[in-house]
Structures are given as structure tokens and as C-alpha cells.
């Protein structure tokens, strides 16, 4: 894979080789940093039997943007690994729930910090680690724990990805990325965990050398394909949503 110029002309081209059965991680927390355009392209590409890793399956908010649940609705997903697999209020309905309750898709529920750390561990060559999170809960039932310095910890395993979809504000042709504000969220750890990282980028792609080496958030060696997001309506951008105040 060339390190020289990773710019790809279209989202369709960027996701074309994703095979059935792949494990794909998605950056994003609420709207910021969510790779809407790549999700849409994956829906159009049609790969099936996928395992998807993301904070949430999405779809709780209006306007609805491309989300993991749409890929589930599309019949492409075998399993999701998320920090939210159901709503926490009876009055909320997640689009994912219908498919999950019908047994049409599997789900693994993981605390958000454990999810981020499992991805970071995969990227860092750490196959397993201990965490205090979820000890004493339903999630720890039947699983291996260990007492270290008098406290009980749960053993968690790295979660490597075949592909990561990320969204960044800025990129250079070498793949160095910068994120804007809370757009960063899961994106850098998804990129670390993946064999192939595909980035959709808000701004025009810069030539290599235009980004100061101290300003890079995700080094280009973690990024393999870059697509500039075109202006709306061709490209999908975060939109204002109704303010909710629960």
C-alpha cells in the first residue's frame, strides 16, 4: 500500500473491497465524528454477515442520519458490539431493538470505556488487560476476574478490527488526521485497532508537509484511504437536531 497518496475519489471506491464477514469499527459519538458517508456507501455496497463496533446503533434522534441500525435493517449485520444496545427509557425506541428482540442480529454490550480500551489494546499489541469496570455486575457473570492489590478486576480482551471508518476535519495526502473538538472521540482508537482505516474528511486534503508534525492527532501510518466529503447534498454533514432535554 503506497504511503504517498491515499486519496480515493469516491466513498464507493473506498469501501469496494470490504468482504462479507468483515469486522468494522465506526468512530463517532452523537453526530460529531460519525462517518455518515462511509456508512451510506457500505449500505450501497452490500457486504453481509458483518460485525460492527460502535458506541451505539443509532437512530434515536431526528433527523435520522446513516447509522449502524440502517445496516442491520439492510440485512448486512451478524453482530454489533456497542455500549448501547437498547434504550434506557421505556419511552425511547431504538430502530435496532426490533431486530435484536427478533433474534435477527446478535449484540455484545460493552461499557464505553472498556470498548475504547479494547480497541486501543488491539492497536497497541496488548492482547488483554484488567479493568475495575463492570465488576460485580451482570456483565461479569461467569467471566475471569483477578484480585490485584486488594481490588477485584475483570479480564478484557483486545478487539481488533479489519476496517475502521472515521471522520476527521483535516487530512494530508499521507493520511495524517486532525479532528475538530468532540469529533475526535472514538476515531483515533478505531484507526489504531484496524488493519485498514478509511477516513472521510471535511476539508480539502492537504499536501504532505502542510500539517505540523506536532499537530497531528492520528498519524498517517494508521490511515489507508481518504475521501473528501463533498458539499451537501452530495455529501452528508452533521445537522442540527431538536434539542432534547431529558
Amino acid at each position, binding site marked *: 500500500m503506497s504511503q504517498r497518496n491515499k486519496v480515493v475519489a469516491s466513498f464507493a471506491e473506498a469501501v469496494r473491497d470490504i468482504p462479507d464477514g468483515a469486522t468494522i469499527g465506526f468512530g463517532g*459519538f*452523537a*453526530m*460529531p*465524528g460519525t462517518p455518515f458517508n462511509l456508512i451510506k456507501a457500505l449500505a450501497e455496497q452490500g457486504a453481509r454477515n458483518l460485525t460492527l463496533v460502535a*458506541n*451505539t446503533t443509532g437512530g434515536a*434522534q431526528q433527523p435520522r442520519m446513516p447509522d449502524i441500525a440502517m445496516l442491520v435493517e439492510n440485512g448486512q449485520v451478524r453482530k454489533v458490539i456497542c*455500549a*448501547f*444496545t*437498547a*434504550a*434506557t*427509557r*421505556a419511552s425511547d425506541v431504538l430502530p435496532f*431493538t426490533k431486530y*435484536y*428482540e427478533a433474534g435477527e442480529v446478535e*449484540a455484545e*454490550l*460493552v*461499557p*464505553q*470505556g*472498556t470498548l*475504547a*480500551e479494547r*480497541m*486501543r489494546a488491539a492497536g497497541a499489541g496488548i492482547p488483554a488487560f484488567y*479493568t*475495575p*469496570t*463492570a*465488576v*460485580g*455486575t*451482570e*456483565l461479569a457473570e461467569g467471566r475471569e476476574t483477578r484480585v490485584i492489590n486488594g481490588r477485584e478486576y475483570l479480564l478484557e480482551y483486545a478487539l481488533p478490527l479489519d476496517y475502521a471508518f472515521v471522520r476527521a*476535519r483535516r487530512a494530508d495526502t499521507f493520511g495524517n488526521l486532525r*479532528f*475538530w*473538538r*468532540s*469529533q*475526535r*472521540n*472514538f*476515531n*483515533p*482508537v478505531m484507526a489504531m485497532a484496524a488493519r485498514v482505516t478509511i477516513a472521510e474528511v471535511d476539508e480539502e486534503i492537504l499536501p504532505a508537509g502542510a500539517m505540523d508534525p506536532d499537530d497531528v*492527532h492520528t498519524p498517517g501510518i494508521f490511515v489507508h484511504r481518504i475521501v473528501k466529503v463533498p458539499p451537501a447534498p452530495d455529501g452528508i*454533514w*452533521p*445537522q*442540527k*437536531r431538536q*434539542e*432534547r432535554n*431529558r
Partner: protein
Amino acid sequence: MSGTKGSKGWNRQQMADRIAQEFQDGWIVNLGVGLPTLCSNTDIGDREVIYHSENGVIGYGPIAAPGTEDLNLVNAGGQNVTLKPGAAVVHHADSFAIIRGGRIDATVMGAYEVACNGDFANWKIAGAKGGGIGGAMDLAACAKRVFIILEHTTRDGKPRLVRQCALPVTARGVVTLAATNFGLFEPTGEAFRVRDLAPGVTLEEVRAATGCPVLA
């Protein structure tokens, strides 16, 4: 976490205000989605608190005024917030390093139930398949103090302050204080101790609406 209109004692903002009064100068505080967010409205004088959001925002300020929103800047609830001078942004693994590493002085969360042994439950609705954990289990296990805000009873009058959680717990033995519309309560193991009563609420009313002993 339903509305409190017409219910006895403190309203939603007053419950949040009471918790916010516990914040000390220099604390790093994580506010969960919903009711806890209201803590950032409370006037706590010249005490300075740094708000941390699980998505990696350290030092956020009030909700952005309409028309000034940065759509790429949200708090844990997805609301568009502002940043205070000195703010910094990190990625998710670093954000939870901050949480798991014990840097959060207090976390404030909603809950369905709090037990007098310090357990609480807030991620899974009875009978649901799956749940919504988000950052709650990390925060609950690792923050120095866990503050809970919840209605004292369910809509049909069942106690939410109980001897033992019926729902799957988020963490065990971690709750520092729970604020309800009836007052502020401290789990002591076998009971809740009253730290404050809301105006017009009596100890007897609290005891009648609580699923375990209540100490004055």
C-alpha cells in the same frame, strides 16, 4: 427520571442544585445525561469546577446559545455545548483513562434504583433485551464520588431507594449520595441517612416511601 410536575418536595432543578452544592473548588466533575446536566446551571459561588464529558471534552461550559452551536462539539447527552478557557480535547481511550485512572472527583448520574448498600441500577429496563451502559459503569466504578439524582418513587409509587436493587446493577457499593425530590440521602449499608429534607417533606413521609430503614 420522569418529570416532577406536581410531585412533592424539590423539583428537578432543585435536586440538581442540592447535589451541585457538594462540589468543591477545583473538582473535576462528570455530569451524566438528563437530570445531572442541570447541575451546571447551579450557582456555586466562586468555586470553580471543571466539567469532563466522556467523549473527551475537558472544561466545557454552558449549552451553546441558539445560532452559535458548533455541531462538532457535544456533551455526553449530545447537546451542543461551549468551551471554557483552559479546555482541552482528548480521544475516547484517553477520556476513559481519566475516568478509570481516578481523576474524576465526582460523577452525577440518573438511576432507576439506589440501594442502601451503595449499589445502584441505571442501565437496563426490566424485561429489556440489551441495555444502555454508555460510560456509566466506568464512571461508577472509578470516580471518587458517585452522586445519584432520581425521583424518590416510581410513577406508581414504588420506592426507588431500596434495600437491594431488583434491576441489574451498574456498580456495587459506590453511591456517595442520592438526591431525590424528598431530600438528600446517604447510603450507610443497612439504611439511608437523611442529610437534607426538601421543604414540606417529613421524615415519616420519607420512611413510608423508602424500601429500607431511613435514619434521621
